[in-house]
């Protein structure tokens, strides 16, 4: 009887990549009309499982059943035919195209013996679908012109247009605001009510508790457990996901506040499109504290970091470090004035991946007299320096001559932190410092940040993960459309309130405006 309800079953699936077993004989069952969460850390193998189901990878072993029939899914086309659709984490949308063009791409309605695309019919169809599922998407809009939340709905429409009954959502909330998230959850419920079944890939426990009916936990390529959500707890799930007991709280003593060190006053900065990305931002950072900047991605965080480090021109306002104006100075001058940055994207901004660890360790200091002898670099000195940092910060690398590319993500991040902390800055900016890392590395990095704060440094933490902000910060400033719209203490708030502030629905009493 239960079998009849099962729409997808993966049996003993094994998928290997050179060097690793991404899926080790995993089993998975999706029942009709349920939302089934697939939980695991980055790299645990949950995406691989779903890529196998969607036909993007071919498994070495195992069987897949859809609606009770054994099937071979040799490509996305086959998956689509079987009624499986995937809402990708990184949207697969062609930006210069319209919503409708993106949706029909690959299965276009045709006229004139197939010689032309029947655009009229396409727009109609897309409009109807959008209406039917309450998605509210403008079929004529170009992808460039619509919000991220809307783009996600286009992705959902793409699967529905192809007649999908089984929808895979890959980390769908990563890019959304808390309010967009609740809208998405409504949409997902709506889909299930209309007979669809949903697989939700995620590493966020909260979402699972909020929406999922059952959950399958994956760790290091293996399925650890599969159970109904009712009757489980976040702590229990976290333990299964990580494989040991984890404390969701970080031990840290109270902050000992020192004098103000970084003062940002009425900062105005232009963004990429020439509009004001920062619109009169104000905040003060003191020695001995961690100030968390909370906010939805794209509200000026990147521009703030770039302005603070001299990578983006300041249109108006001032940035003072120890009372000295640094707005308009060059990145190197600012670095020398005492600001260090752990950048958001370690591959793109933090490291030269094809250079050895040795060179990466002096990326910002190579020109100083210690390493630079009359225009020639002293590589002996540089090597000694790199060896010391590698040792002090426990960067696991075969040698300092190994290319940075060959290091694991966690060790790459450790290398960056070693370099930045060793500059002995007054202000350490950490942007998304733990993105994509496993729990062990996250713990290590969090400890290092707290350690810096305990030593009397000022730490500015910019993160899109509310949990990280709540855990680490001594004070939280919420950024919305380029302004700090409120400041709160982590002990006196919760993510619901922060979420509302992040979308400017609610200002707390005693925010900066009333100061």
């Amino acid at each position: 009887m239960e079998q009849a309800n099962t729409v997808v079953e993966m049996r003993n699936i094994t998928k290997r990549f050179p060097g690793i077993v991404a899926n080790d004989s995993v089993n998975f069952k999706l029942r009709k009309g349920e939302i089934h969460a697939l939980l695991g850390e980055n790299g645990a193998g949950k995406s691989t499982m779903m890529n196998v189901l969607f036909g993007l990878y071919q498994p070495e072993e195992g069987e897949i059943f859809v609606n009770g029939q054994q099937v071979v899914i040799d490509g996305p086309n086959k998956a689509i035919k079987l009624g499986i659709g995937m809402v990708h984490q990184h949207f697969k949308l062609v930006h210069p195209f319209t919503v409708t063009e993106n949706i029909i791409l690959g299965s276009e309605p045709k006229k004139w013996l197939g010689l032309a695309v029947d655009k009229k019919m396409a727009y109609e169809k897309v409009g109807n679908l959008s209406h039917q599922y309450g998605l509210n998407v403008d079929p004529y809009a170009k992808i460039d012109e619509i919000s991220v939340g809307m783009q996600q709905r286009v992705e959902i429409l793409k699967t529905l247009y192809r007649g999908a009954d089984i929808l895979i959502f890959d980390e769908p909330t990563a890019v959304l605001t808390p309010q967009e998230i609740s809208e998405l959850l409504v949409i997902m419920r709506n889909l299930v009510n209309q007979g669809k079944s949903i697989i939700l890939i995620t590493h966020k426990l909260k979402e699972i508790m909020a929406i999922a009916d059952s959950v399958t936990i994956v760790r290091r390529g293996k399925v650890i457990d599969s159970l109904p959500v009712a009757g489980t707890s976040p702590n229990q799930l976290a333990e299964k996901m990580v494989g040991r007991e984890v404390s969701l709280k970080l031990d840290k003593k109270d902050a000992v506040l020192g004098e103000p060190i970084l003062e940002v006053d009425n900062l105005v900065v232009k963004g990429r499109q020439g509009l004001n990305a920062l619109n009169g931002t104000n905040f003060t950072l003191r020695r001995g504290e961690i100030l968390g900047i909370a906010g939805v991605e794209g509200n000026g965080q990147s521009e703030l970091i770039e302005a603070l480090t001299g990578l983006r021109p300041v249109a108006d306002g001032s940035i003072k470090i120890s009372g000295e104006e640094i707005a308009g100075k060059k990145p190197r001058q600012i670095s020398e004035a005492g600001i260090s940055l752990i950048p958001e994207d370690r591959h793109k901004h933090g490291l030269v991946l094809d250079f050895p660890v040795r060179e990466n360790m002096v990326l910002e200091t190579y020109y100083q007299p210690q390493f630079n002898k009359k225009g020639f670099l002293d590589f002996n000195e540089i090597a000694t320096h790199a060896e010391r940092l590698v040792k002090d910060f426990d960067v696991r690398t075969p040698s300092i001559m190994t290319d940075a590319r060959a290091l694991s993500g966690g060790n790459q991040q450790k290398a960056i932190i070693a370099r930045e902390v060793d500059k002995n800055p007054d202000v350490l900016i950490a942007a998304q410092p733990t993105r994509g890392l496993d729990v062990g590395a996250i713990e290590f990095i969090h400890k290092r940040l707290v350690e810096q704060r305990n030593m009397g440094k000022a730490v500015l933490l910019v993160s899109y993960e509310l949990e990280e902000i709540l855990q680490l910060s001594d004070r939280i400033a919420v950024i919305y459309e380029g302004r700090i719209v409120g400041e709160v203490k982590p002990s006196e708030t919760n993510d619901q309130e922060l979420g509302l502030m992040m979308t400017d629905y609610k200002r707390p009493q005693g925010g900066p405006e009333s100061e």
Partner: protein
Amino acid sequence: MNKLIRAFTKDSALVPLVAIVLGLIVGAIIMLIGGYDPILAYRSLLETVFGNRYDFGETLTAITPILFTGLSVAFAFRTGLFNIGAEGQYIMGMTGATIIGVTVHLPWYIHAPLAVVVGAICGGIWGMIAGYLKAARGVNEVITTIMLNWIALHLANYLVNRFLLEPGKGRSYMVDDSASATIGWLSRFMDDARMHWGMFFALLCVIFFYAFLWRTKQGFELRVVGSNADAAAYAGINVNSGVVKAMFISGALAGLAGVFQVLGVFHNQVIAASHTGHGFDGIAVALLGGNTPLGVLLGAILFGTLSYGAAGMSFGADVPPEIIRIVIGSVIFFVAAPGIIRWLLKRVSGKKRKEEAI
């Protein structure tokens, strides 16, 4: 044997060597199809190059410009730039040297160095234009350098035609002897082959290339820019000025190729209908040499030898010398797509294993 195959399939260090062999084989096959004797052809190529002093000297003279342009392209590559414009920078280098060589009259110890410097600067500026457009406007240097090649060709023709033309000759006046870079005694020793200082200059540039990029602070900055421009910016390196600087140096290296063709080989500049191809050869040389100084040197020696020796093939084996263009093209093709070599080797080794099994 298996180890050897694994070395090819895993490590790309041997790819250029296999590519050369494959390129020569492609040439041989095409000669066979055309009814020529490839063994005889390749032998006459070598006999030409190493047969007598004159031809050996001329081979060295043929290697020199592509060593310069090869270094030029490789230098830009190291800074993350694809300089297709060595051809145009070469022409501008020629033009600069010709203008100084023809229009001013100075003692040799000033005249020749001045012509060299001005020519190098002209080439450098021509490269810098593309660098500037990339830095200031974000314009892809591949397209601009292609366009600048053609602009240089016509601009040089205009300058020669308008200001430097020796009436009725289709070329500029001869440059003054005081601007010549010819080495008289060496030319006489080489049976009147056109020997000049450019070759030694080019070797110095090989050393400069290594020392600058891998030993100096500025070279380090350029390599960081080349490998990851974003990280360079975050590290406080001025990426834009790096790009402009690198294109200037790259252009100057290509310009020197043109300088010495004028001052050491032709002693004048002709009104050209099309490109010489030295700039494009430079791309081939840089790719084959893996953008390393030693690799570029070896690549230039190989392609210079093949190009000069090609003429001998048509005397010795009656093979059209254009076959060498096909050989060089094939070599680059295999270097650029190492996947093909791996694929071929897999086929070969796979088949063998099957045969063994039988």
